[in-house]
């Protein structure tokens, strides 16, 4: 408001352009965002628009033929359910488990060691995790051999099905969810909980009345990011799951359309549907945010 008042009252034509721009906080430093803008335009905006338009130019039929085909073939539209059936539980498990652990870890002195250990699965990537799980949990793996050795019954089928993919999603997704939750929780001033305690709030009440409301915003963001990550699951669904059955996720359908049927228009349509599904879930989570306090989580002046 003051900026505008200044520019209106003292911005005659004689003022140099640089000064007038500076009033709107535009200066040489602003140019530094240009590479990022270009990058986003070339690598995200253009491919997105290209794919969007391509999806309306099917190999055969009218402009909506790809979408009609997807939603009339259960082999295709079931992939949405299969993906959600993996992504939603995995996201919830990762985010919800991260809360109690982060609550404890924030009090630890050697937090850095633990966070380093947890970051390793992120840096290794899903393929290595999948390979490891295949060896460890497979029919001839250590896990089943130990089970049989100690007489707990025959081999348990833990890979090449839903369980395998779920385990991999938790292994690779948890550290990410945890680190986000930890940073949000450590952002809440501990004196707020101390104050609640001196006012007679027991641990459960402190969690419900103080921590959760202040954490809600962060958890919503965490849910969104974790969900988007797990929804686009591909390597672990192929390597650890049953890519033709229970874990035939939507990205597999897109892959097959593009590289097995060489129908890039259909693949684009599937990718668009996939993006739309993610968008709906993210929009749902973010709109739920408005029910909660959104503001600083500090404790006043400090």
């Amino acid at each position, binding site marked *: 408001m003051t900026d505008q008042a200044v520019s209106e009252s003292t911005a005659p034509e004689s003022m140099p352009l640089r000064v007038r721009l500076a009033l709107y906080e535009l200066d040489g430093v602003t140019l530094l965002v240009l590479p990022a803008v270009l990058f986003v335009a070339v690598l995200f905006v253009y491919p997105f628009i290209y794919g969007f338009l391509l999806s309306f130019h099917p190999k055969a039929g009218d402009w909506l033929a790809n979408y009609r085909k997807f939603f009339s073939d259960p082999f295709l539209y079931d992939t949405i359910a299969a993906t959600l059936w993996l992504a939603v539980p995995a996201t919830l498990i990762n985010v919800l488990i991260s809360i109690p652990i982060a609550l404890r870890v924030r009090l630890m002195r050697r937090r850095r060691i633990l966070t380093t250990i947890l970051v390793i699965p992120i840096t290794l990537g899903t393929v290595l995790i999948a390979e490891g799980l295949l060896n460890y949990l497979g029919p001839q793996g250590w896990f089943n051999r130990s089970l049989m050795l100690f007489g707990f019954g025959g081999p348990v089928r833990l890979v090449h099905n839903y369980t395998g993919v779920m385990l991999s999603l938790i292994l690779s997704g948890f550290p990410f969810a945890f680190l986000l939750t930890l940073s949000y929780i450590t952002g809440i001033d501990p004196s707020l909980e101390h104050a*609640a305690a*001196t006012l*007679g709030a027991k641990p459960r009440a402190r969690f419900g009345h103080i921590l959760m409301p*202040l954490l809600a915003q962060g958890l919503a963001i965490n849910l969104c990011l974790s969900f988007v990550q797990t929804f686009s699951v591909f390597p672990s669904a192929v390597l650890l799951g049953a890519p033709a059955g229970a874990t035939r996720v939507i990205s597999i359908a897109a892959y097959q359309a593009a590289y097995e049927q060489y129908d890039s228009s259909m693949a684009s349509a599937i990718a668009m549907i996939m993006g739309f599904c993610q968008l709906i879930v993210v929009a749902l989570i973010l709109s739920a945010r408005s029910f909660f306090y959104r503001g600083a989580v500090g404790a006043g*002046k*400090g």
Partner: protein
Amino acid sequence: MAIAARDFRELRLDAMSRTFGSLNALQGVTLSVRRGEFIALLGPSGCGKSTALNCLAGLLTLSGGSIWLDNTRIDRLKPEERGFGMVFQNYALFPHMSVRKNIGFGLTMQGRPKPELERKVDEALAIVRLGDQSEKLPGQLSGGQQQRVAIARAIVIEPPLVLMDEPLSNLDAKLRLEMRAEIRRIHELIGSATIYVTHDQEEALSLADRIVVMRDGMVRQVGTPEELYSRPAHSDVAEFMGYRNQICSRAAKAGNLMDVSVGGVSLQGTPVEPMADGDAVAAIRPDDLKVSAGGPISATVESAQYHGSDFYCSGRAAEGTELYFRSAQRIEKGDTVALAADPSRVLVYPRVPS
């Protein structure tokens, strides 16, 4: 029914101590507090005063000793079981709750019926004069108003003991004076005992009934503001109470007084405790070292700050002794002044070899 502190006779700290690793943050603090008393814990940062307060609140557990409220031992109780009100240095208001919800939080946790809760919150709002701000969020209030909410929230649960951790340190000078009076007024109104942590001697002197001076986790002196101001028991307490001139010297008995040497000049001072001839520290307030025509000490002025009613000056006497004093007249850097001090205002302490 107005807000009034729960009744008790005595809060007793018995050899309270707390260690952090190898650091002794509190060493055997013993103190007894009566209902209605205003106690200031005074000391430099790191002296253990905040640790003591947190131990009282139950936010820190004791490594040794005990705390008693009348005949009940409370040092093993959790903070939520003690029922003390606490005002935090950064106020610690719940940012997602309105002023009314913040103040009512303690009563909600006690499960009080709604009409009673509303009435008590209204009373607390009236006491801190914030009746018209009750629906705002803390972030919409000024620092002074946030401070009042923090106080209202602590007193509305009618605690026998109110703990305050440097509550005024984040306010500007004018507001600090206003809130000081306000805190004393509220203390008298509800009749609780208040334990107030501060590093500001002026705050402690003006607010407290008794001051507890702490240093290195130990209680150095307990006394009324007058006692501490006029007769600090140790030279380090004296330094903290504004005896800025601390001059090391030999001291020799001269009747009831002691002869000490200040800036190469012999001066008479009053021993604070019976002492023999030997190494001593002479402590003099800048206010008591006066510029006077026939004064024995001659000093060269090094700086003079204008303080409205007078000048706060520093100067150097013979032997390189730095002296702080006040002058009613304007003096300039480089002037030579003659200084004198009344023997009763020169306190002599035995020097403890460190």
